[in-house]
């Protein structure tokens, strides 16, 4: 992303190197796509072939063992009539809504605060971003201990004098999903901060200065001028967070394992349970298909717009 912007326009506009000689033999002339052939084959089989296979499986009569009798949308209908799938989808809405909103707000606030010529900015950024380098299994294990009723935060509150305090969200059916939100926000908000900070640093400082000359308050400048300019960063942040939310799996496994009961089930944990533990292959495949469609609906337009705007900026 950033690299191309530092190069002089002339370099970008230079003609394509297609005329570079690779030799006169057939192989020599076709080297570029021959290089890509292995990856192309792998992609065709393991990405697109397997996607097709899973979608087909979701329309088959498979149960314990694969049975490729075509049954149309029967399994999809069955999936959507399952109470547990309903819980998983509902949880995904609650989880992704809160996760996206909170992580975006925290990320934005942190980025704005860090953009105030802060001393030791590098150190602060390192601290805020380090959870992203850790596995969700590691952080889920840590949060499970911190949130455990009795010895975790609850006992901390007791120590601090809130003797009546109760904090048992981890084991409460109606609250456990919020502990997943907390751990996910803690882990990912630093990344969102980095996205907003990069975007803030791209804003022309003279805009800020001239607004200040006119006597506008800092708050007003941010609200009216700076934040509206961050629109692409908002867009990116939401797409990334939504993508993360839909794929969230390890964190739930490590923190609540979908429980108590099925209270924190997400489509991802549902899929694994049905496909592998319960061996209801077609239902598992159908749930995976739903996940793919949801992600594709978000990612395909995003990739398309990113690639297009990039190509435009490169040729202009």
């Amino acid at each position: 992303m950033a690299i191309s912007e530092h190069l002089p326009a002339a370099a970008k506009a230079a003609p394509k190197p297609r005329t570079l000689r690779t030799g006169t033999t057939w192989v020599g002339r076709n080297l570029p796509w021959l290089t890509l052939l292995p990856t192309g084959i792998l992609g065709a089989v393991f990405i697109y072939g397997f996607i097709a296979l899973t979608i087909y499986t979701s329309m088959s009569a498979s149960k314990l063992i694969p049975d490729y009798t075509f049954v149309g949308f029967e399994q999809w209908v069955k999936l959507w009539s399952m109470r547990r799938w309903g819980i998983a989808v509902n949880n995904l809405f609650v989880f992704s809504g809160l996760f996206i909103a909170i992580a975006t707000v925290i990320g934005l606030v942190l980025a704005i605060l860090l953009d105030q010529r802060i001393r030791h900015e590098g150190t602060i950024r390192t601290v805020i971003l380090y959870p992203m380098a850790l596995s969700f299994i590691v952080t889920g294990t840590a949060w499970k201990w911190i949130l455990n009723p009795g010895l975790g935060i609850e006992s901390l509150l007791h120590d601090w004098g809130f003797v009546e305090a109760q904090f048992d969200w981890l084991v409460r059916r109606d609250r456990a999903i919020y502990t997943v939100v907390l751990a996910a926000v803690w882990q990912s908000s630093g990344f969102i901060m980095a996205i907003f900070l990069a975007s803030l640093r791209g804003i022309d400082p003279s805009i800020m200065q001239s607004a200040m000359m006119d006597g506008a308050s800092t708050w007003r400048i941010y609200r009216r001028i700076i934040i509206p300019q961050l629109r692409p960063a908002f867009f990116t942040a939401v797409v990334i967070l939504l993508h993360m939310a839909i794929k969230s799996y390890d964190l739930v496994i490590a923190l609540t394992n979908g429980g108590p009961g099925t209270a924190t089930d997400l489509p991802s944990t549902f899929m694994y349970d049905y496909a592998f533990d319960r061996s209801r292959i077609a239902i598992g495949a159908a749930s995976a298909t739903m996940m793919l469609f949801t992600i594709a609906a978000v990612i395909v337009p995003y990739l398309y717009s990113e690639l297009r705007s990039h190509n435009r900026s490169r040729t202009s």
Partner: protein
Amino acid sequence: MNDIVLGQRSLTDRLLRVALYGVLIGFMLFYLAPLYVMVVTSVKSLEEILAGGLMNLPKKLDFYGWSEAWNNACVGTECRGMAPFMWNSLIASTAATIIPTAIGALNGYALSLWRFKGSELFFGLLLFGAFIPFQIVLLPMASFLGWIGWSSSLVGLTFTYIVYGLPFTTLYFRNFFVSFPMDLVNAAKIDGIGYFRFFWRVALPSSVPIMIVSIIWQFTNTWNDFLFASTMTKLESATVMVALNNFVEVANGVKRYNVDMAAAIIAGLPTLAVYLVAGRYFLRGLMAGAVKG
């Protein structure tokens, strides 16, 4: 930004400044607290843990948790500690880092400096593969590995990592080479340097920064992976994340939180170390994976 315009600061400005640092320190504590709790819990004795005092420093340092986690922690009925699983992770992650990075470098080179008809479409299609929820390939992949005799093995897992790592590594190198100075390419053309020689002599040496990004990305992601690892391995071939989750899941009698926390720290240490040494490249990998073009 205030101090650009205002020559001298008023009292309110100073107070605002103090508040600003206060808020930032508060956030830092929020991010550091879980790590702090992990560390202090890991060096407490079990009695001290059960007596409460989540945030207290240990009264007496006790490394029982660490030695148990490393030497004796159990997965299922096997109690061999974490060492073998760390080794499994290291093997899988190393192979799954080197191979896709090498292939990705060649792919990116071809896709950016040697465009052909359909190369952009190829890139777009491959890129989509970087964002799919892996649940969609999990069932066929598991059957495929069974079919070729690689099920429940480290080889099968490594192969899986390589295949699904390629879209990312190709993306990194392609977007890096796309902004390659065309003067150099044209000069090479005049000199009559061939396809592979140009790659080997010019393109590859210049791509060291993105190579580091790609290496860190692949290593971190494969080390931290749980979904593939838990599907494609069994006890002997389990990676450290699968093992960690199993240590913690096994609940016989009293949970030994000091062992759990020590195990979690050990499992997280390699990627944390990579982050502390090369955080800049780690962030760049994250950003490049998020913002294309």
